């Protein structure tokens, strides 16, 4: 009898902790336990400037976490990439950061710097002469291309401000909408690199106005850029919508800014933090399509990062089916790698807090009373901490409930509308009273003033 009771009790407990219906299959699927990021695989997803800036960011963060192996790996790859380009400033930075730790091949190569600089100077003179010639000839198209070339030149040498200025100058010489779109895309690219996302937003809207010249890939790129701008502006709901709207036509076409996996990740996290249940369900379906597409591309070499995408989908699935403990666990494990992402880094804490709060609110929503001990178990925290979190949510008016601290129960509380209405009515009456009386008084005083002025005049 006793043994029976115990097992049934354990089973009941299990079910209660699960607190969700639906898919009961993989209760013991493999958890990615914060496997360190494969820097090479990660970097191969990108191209252009963003590759190097992401590598440098990873190196910076690893240095903060004292993960020297990862830092050196990132710096090594950055060095190789920078040497393929023409940005001597970056080269000097990377070499300095490496500080001789990677052996003689990865030292400061002043000769290379000087030769690149010399070539750059020559090229700049040539471009300037050409531009002046075009300007005197007043041929719009060549002037536009001249400024464009200048912009490209500055961009590849890391002078982002000058690049931006030159791209913007082409605006006056654009004759077709294709030109305008090209200008917008270049400006967006440079603005993202500079971190000036207000420009990104304005140029995205400018480009979207020229409907005719936009092919699906450009549309997808613009949506991505808009999503990034919203993310930086902390408008997570809008960002999620933009990212999920991007669709898989983007492919690898925008990897000088963002990889398709990133779209899924950013979009998924923002959606989790800000969507309601209906939108969340739609989000899961969109992310499913991402997974399919990626499997088609057959990137078997890049397993670790690729598997992040189905993880995000699983996280959202868990949240939707109320398996909060595993959802929050997964998120915790992914955190270390997500912190290395250049765009997510500043927002991860906020997003995680919002996700956790949403989980708490969603847990308590359907119940009239909730036992705090069981809730603490479901969220894998202790009762005192949970009480504090709930107190904050109640004060913020996100949960309508009250805590019975003696018995550790949360009771849902529905405001008595009738009483509240009476109270508000009486209060409004008092305020009206007070305001009108002081207004009448002031009118009287004004009359006095004006009477005095009248009598002074006359």
């Amino acid at each position, binding site marked *: 009898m006793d043994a029976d009771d115990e097992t049934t009790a354990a089973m009941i407990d299990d079910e209660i902790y699960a607190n969700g219906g639906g898919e009961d299959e993989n209760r013991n699927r493999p958890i990615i336990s914060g496997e360190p990021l494969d820097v090479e695989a990660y970097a191969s997803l990108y191209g252009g400037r963003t590759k190097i800036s992401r590598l440098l960011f990873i190196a910076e963060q690893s240095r903060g976490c004292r993960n020297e192996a990862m830092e050196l790996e990132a710096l090594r790859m950055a060095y190789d990439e920078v040497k393929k380009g023409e940005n001597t400033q970056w080269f000097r930075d990377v070499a300095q950061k490496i500080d001789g730790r990677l052996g003689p091949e990865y030292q400061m190569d002043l000769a290379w710097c000087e030769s690149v600089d010399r070539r750059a100077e020559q090229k700049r003179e040539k471009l300037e002469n050409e531009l002046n010639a075009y300007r005197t000839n007043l041929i719009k198209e060549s002037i536009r291309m001249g400024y464009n070339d200048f912009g490209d030149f500055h961009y590849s040498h890391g002078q982002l401000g000058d690049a931006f200025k030159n791209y913007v100058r082409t605006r006056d010489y654009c004759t077709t909408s294709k030109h305008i779109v090209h200008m917008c895309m270049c400006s967006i690219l440079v603005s993202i690199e500079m971190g000036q996302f207000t420009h990104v937003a304005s140029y995205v809207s400018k480009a979207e106005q020229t409907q005719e010249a936009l092919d699906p890939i450009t549309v997808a790129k613009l949506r991505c850029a808009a999503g990034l701008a919203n993310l930086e502006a902390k408008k997570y709901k809008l960002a999620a919508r933009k990212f999920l709207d991007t669709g898989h036509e983007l492919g690898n076409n925008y990897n000088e800014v963002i990889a398709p996996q990133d779209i899924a990740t950013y979009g998924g996290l923002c959606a989790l933090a800000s969507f309601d249940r209906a939108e969340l369900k739609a989000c899961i379906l969109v992310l499913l399509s991402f997974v399919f597409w990626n499997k088609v591309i057959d990137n078997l070499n890049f397993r670790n990062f690729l598997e992040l995408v189905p993880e995000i989908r699983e996280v959202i699935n868990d949240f939707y089916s109320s398996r909060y403990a595993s959802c929050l666990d997964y998120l915790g494990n992914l955190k270390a790698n997500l912190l290395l992402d250049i765009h997510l880094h500043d927002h991860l804490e906020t997003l995680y807090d919002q996700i956790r709060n949403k989980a708490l609110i969603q847990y308590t929503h359907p119940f009239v009373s909730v036992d705090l001990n069981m809730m603490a178990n479901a969220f894998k925290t202790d009762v005192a901490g949970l009480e504090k979190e709930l107190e904050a949510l109640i004060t913020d008016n996100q949960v309508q409930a009250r805590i019975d601290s003696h018995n550790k129960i949360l009771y849902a509380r529905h405001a008595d509308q009738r009483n509240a209405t009476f109270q508000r009515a009486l209060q409004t009456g008092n305020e009206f*009273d007070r305001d009108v009386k*002081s207004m*009448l008084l002031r009118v009287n005083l004004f009359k006095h003033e004006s009477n005095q002025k009248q009598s002074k005049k006359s």
Partner: protein
Amino acid sequence: MEVLVVNIQGLSTNPGDLPNLHNILKQAHDSLHAESIRLLPLLDMLDPSLHSLGYLYILEACTSSALSKEQASAVVLPTARFMNSCSKEQIQLAPEKFISVCKRFKDYVMQLEAPMRGVAPMLAAIRKIQSSSEHLTPLHPEFLVLCLLSKCYKAGLSILDEDIFEVDQPKDLLLYCYYGGMICIGEKRFRKAVELLHNVVTAPMSVITAVAVEAYKKYILVSLIHNGQFSTSLPKYTSSVAQRNLKNICQPYIELANSYTTGKIADFETVAQKYQEKFDNDNNLGLVKQAISSMYKRNIQRLTQTYLTLSLQDIANSVQLNSAKEAEMHVLQMIQDGEIFATINQKDGMVSFLEDPEQYKSCGMIERIDSSIQRIMALSRKLTTMNENISCDPMYLAKVGRERQRFDFDDYDPVPQRFNI
């Protein structure tokens, strides 16, 4: 002089003779002033309620020059009797004289250090000279000063409960509201105090006066006690001089208000310590202490919103009190004052918070709602009449006539031609 007295006695009885009497008195004005205090015995021959006008003139002449302490004490009693019993109609003929007599009366009473003697007569005097209960006379602030000095706050409150709409002198209003605010603070009627002080701060003014500054300081403290918050931005209708300057002059108070909103009692107390001397000099130290205790109360009230039951120790911890015993005392006091609804279970050391038992179903509540409605309807009517009056005002019409749009000549013209300037 005897001729004058006879005249007064003769002409005072018939209302038709009063203008005549008034002229005679005006002519005798200078000679009366020359005699000054020596006229005092004349007063015994007159009856203040029948011969009010004459009595007034003679009294005014008596008090016109500076008096020594004994002379002052001799004058005080007849003046008080006069203020209590004079005839309203006769007084209305020479209001400025009456007001100046009352003001000097107040000075003598203060000189004799017996402000309480002046309270009742001054109240009577106000009633005599007011044209309606909504009228603010220059005597109102004097009366409130006497109440404050003699600590007869309840007498002051009886005047304050009447609404004021007509004002003779703006300066009177500012002083009235300031003193009124202080009386309300003394009686712990903080809502009315906030109203009055708000009126001072937002009154139209062209220069910053000391009254406005002091009123602003108290206003900050009282709104912290009453509302638990204070916004440094003054409403739009405040005069621009006030908006620009008040904040700079009252910097320590603004700092105090900012530390109150953080909710941390320790911070608030440090700021209070820092500026303690300043607060003391302004006589606001008591208010600051009340603000500190109101902070505890507010924190406990916030707890009632989130908890159904809470242990006394937890209350002490979250409100930053020192022990459960102190928490118990605070909660007990608040329950007695009706600020929260709760029961304390001493066995467990638990406090259960209850809902407001007011169900809005009782007769008393219905009466209250009904009277509110009546009052607000009356106010509404007042507003409409005021609107109508202004629409008929020639100056307003002239301005509107000047600025209105001109359409076609044949269009219906709402403003008559006479006002086409």
